[in-house]
């Protein structure tokens, strides 16, 4: 019989190695992450009687949502530097701690646990996207933090079990379902002969893109606009052209595209152009609101007439907003109309939190939660903010924007009666190139 197979003795080594490794690793992870906190709970250069207010956030700096995540980061940081240069909050400087979640739900949960339990931040800002907001809300609810965010507006965020129990999610931006209502109202205001007779509703498979288009479809059908195409397509490059070709084949007079990003819109526009199809009205859930990223992808000439709903635009005649835009341009370059709406959303998150802190004279999250649910109206660069019971901003203004003047000007066009609206280009001009 052979002597003991080395397998077992190797396994001894392996087992003990596993034990030692596990202890070392997690100890290393935990101790390093708390020591890497850049002076969050220790007073550093600030006056000895006041500690900085630390605010933690997890953002998608890489991965699927990276361009939006990075715009958000810039918004948060712009807000923090503005607050600090005017004396801080309650006399204390604000310190941001932003972690990257790589657009992954597992990472987002780990990040917030790290921020709450290890870095012990005072307050929390939300991540980017409804899909990441739901797990973050659970973590925040368990730790008792309010989660003020600007990019998680899908119905599922407000309906999530954690939020329904703890009521700790506050979305400062426009709830997405209502985004296309101004457009619908405008169509209703046109004389029946000028309304589109047919409409197509292609939607990407995403909780952000579909609700506004579906709601608009219901309302437009009630107005007598015939639905000639209404399908959900996968949010994948290869699926855009077939769907777009199908829409082009219908010849619909209006297209309401449930898009989440620029590539979807540009793929549709390109396919329409190849098919020599030009809808009279073309509105997208997202994409044309991305400033330069949009016009450089589709070409300035083609951008003319494209419409997109949003709660904000660079030309918004709000003094705080104008100041933020000029600061952004000074810091990052480009022109005002290049400023991404994400920046304004992030900035508004900061503003709401600041007003909550000054309103409750402290950083107690429970007090902040009840303050924000008390029906108080706050002001931000995106306009007024007032939260309902589920954390939706019920005062959010829904605007619709349109690219004009050969793709160089991004103008507010709807609601027609709102201050700052210019006349809408209708019908959409033909493709140029």
């Amino acid at each position: 019989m052979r002597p003991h197979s080395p397998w077992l003795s190797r396994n001894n080594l392996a087992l003990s190695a596993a034990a030692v490794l596990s202890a070392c690793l997690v100890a290393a992870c935990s101790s390093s992450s708390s020591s890497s906190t850049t002076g969050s709970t220790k007073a550093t250069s600030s006056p000895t009687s006041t500690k900085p207010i630390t605010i933690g956030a997890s953002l998608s700096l890489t991965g699927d949502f990276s361009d939006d995540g990075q715009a958000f980061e810039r918004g948060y940081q712009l807000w923090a530097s503005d607050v600090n240069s005017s004396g801080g909050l309650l006399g204390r400087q604000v310190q941001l701690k932003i972690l990257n979640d790589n657009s992954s739900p597992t990472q987002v949960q780990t990040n917030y646990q790290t921020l709450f339990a290890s870095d012990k931040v005072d307050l929390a800002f939300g991540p980017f996207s409804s899909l990441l907001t739901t797990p973050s809300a659970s973590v925040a609810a368990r730790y008792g933090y309010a989660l003020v965010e600007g990019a998680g507006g899908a119905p599922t965020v407000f309906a999530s079990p954690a939020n329904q129990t703890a009521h700790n999610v506050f979305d400062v931006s426009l709830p997405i379902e209502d985004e296309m209502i101004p457009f619908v109202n405008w169509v209703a205001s046109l004389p029946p002969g000028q309304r589109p007779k047919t409409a197509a509703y292609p939607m990407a498979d995403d909780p952000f893109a579909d609700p506004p288009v579906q709601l608009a479809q219901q309302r437009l059908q009630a107005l007598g606009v015939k639905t000639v195409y209404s399908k959900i397509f996968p949010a994948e490059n290869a699926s855009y052209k077939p769907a777009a070709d199908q829409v082009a084949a219908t010849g619909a007079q209006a297209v309401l595209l449930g898009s989440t990003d620029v590539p979807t819109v540009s793929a549709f526009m390109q396919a329409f152009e190849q098919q020599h199809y030009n809808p009279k009205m073309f509105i997208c859930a997202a994409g044309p609101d991305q400033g330069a990223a949009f016009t450089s992808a589709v070409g300035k000439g083609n951008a003319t007439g494209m419409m997109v709903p949003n709660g904000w635009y660079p030309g918004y005649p709000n003094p705080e907003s104008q100041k933020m835009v000029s600061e952004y341009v000074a810091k990052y370059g480009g022109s005002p109309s290049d400023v991404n709406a994400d920046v304004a959303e992030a900035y508004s998150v900061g503003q709401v939190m600041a007003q909550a802190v000054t309103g409750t004279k402290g950083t107690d999250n429970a007090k902040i939660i009840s303050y924000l649910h008390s029906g108080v109206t706050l002001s931000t660069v995106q306009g007024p903010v007032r939260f309902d019971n589920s954390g939706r901003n019920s005062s959010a203004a829904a605007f619709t924007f349109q690219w004009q003047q050969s793709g160089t000007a991004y103008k507010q066009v709807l609601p027609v009666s709102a201050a700052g609206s210019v006349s809408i280009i209708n019908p959409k001009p033909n493709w140029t190139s």
Partner: protein
Amino acid sequence: MARQIYQAIVDGILVGGVYALMAVGLTLIFGVLDIINIAQGVLVILGAYLSYSLETRLHIDLFAGLLITVPVMFVIGVFIQWAFIRRLRGRERTSMTLLVTYAVALIIEGILYEIYGPDPKQLTASYVQSSVHVFGFYLSYIYLYGFALAVVLIAAIYALLYRTTFGRSVRATMQDHTAARLIGIEVNRVAALTFGVGVGVTAAGGMLFGATNAFNPNSGYDLISRLLAIIILGGLGSIGGALAASVFMLTLESLVDIWSPEWAIVVFYAVLVLVLVIRPTGFFGRPPVRAQ
């Protein structure tokens, strides 16, 4: 309805050409080196970015730019094989090649993010948006040119494989590495050069992909799974199979898209599973090669 069907068939054939160009490199690499190159998706994107740089910085036309991007990618391919793939052997070779090609994909993706950033880009040219009116359909020029390019390049590879001495070495290596070595073929050199050819062709696929889709460094992932399905269906190592499978799958997907875009992609994979159950070697595949 009939019009939609014809449109779908035409679309499917034309887009199939683009996918064929992207898949040919993958199947060639598989046939000779017996590895699945997961980095293929990212290599397509790399080709697209190279064409993008040539177009925006030096204003070189997309097709003319291929004269530069194809050799560049060829060299990159040879390097990757020589540096990383060559030394993989042993029982765990399959998982090793998966990991190595995945690692290479990560590195290339990270570098592309660093250089170009995450904003989506697209290749533009006069013929990208315009189309020709034929029999009541609009056929966009870029797809027509692309399909023609695909046919030409695939024919060229065929000629390479069947009419040159090098091609004969490649085919011998495909059949049996040991036997090839015995008759004096330098298998390592053949492998490296073939990898290079495979990646070089991918440059053309990348250009076409970039002209017909907006892309960013992350776009490679969606692609690789479809390309894998195509080459398995066409038969691992079969060039003509890659073209046939691409056209077939894309046309089928296009047709199902009329009814439901969501289920169209599922059909793609479901057909693959179905065909493999009936015929495990795909359309034109050969029985599995004995590993070296």
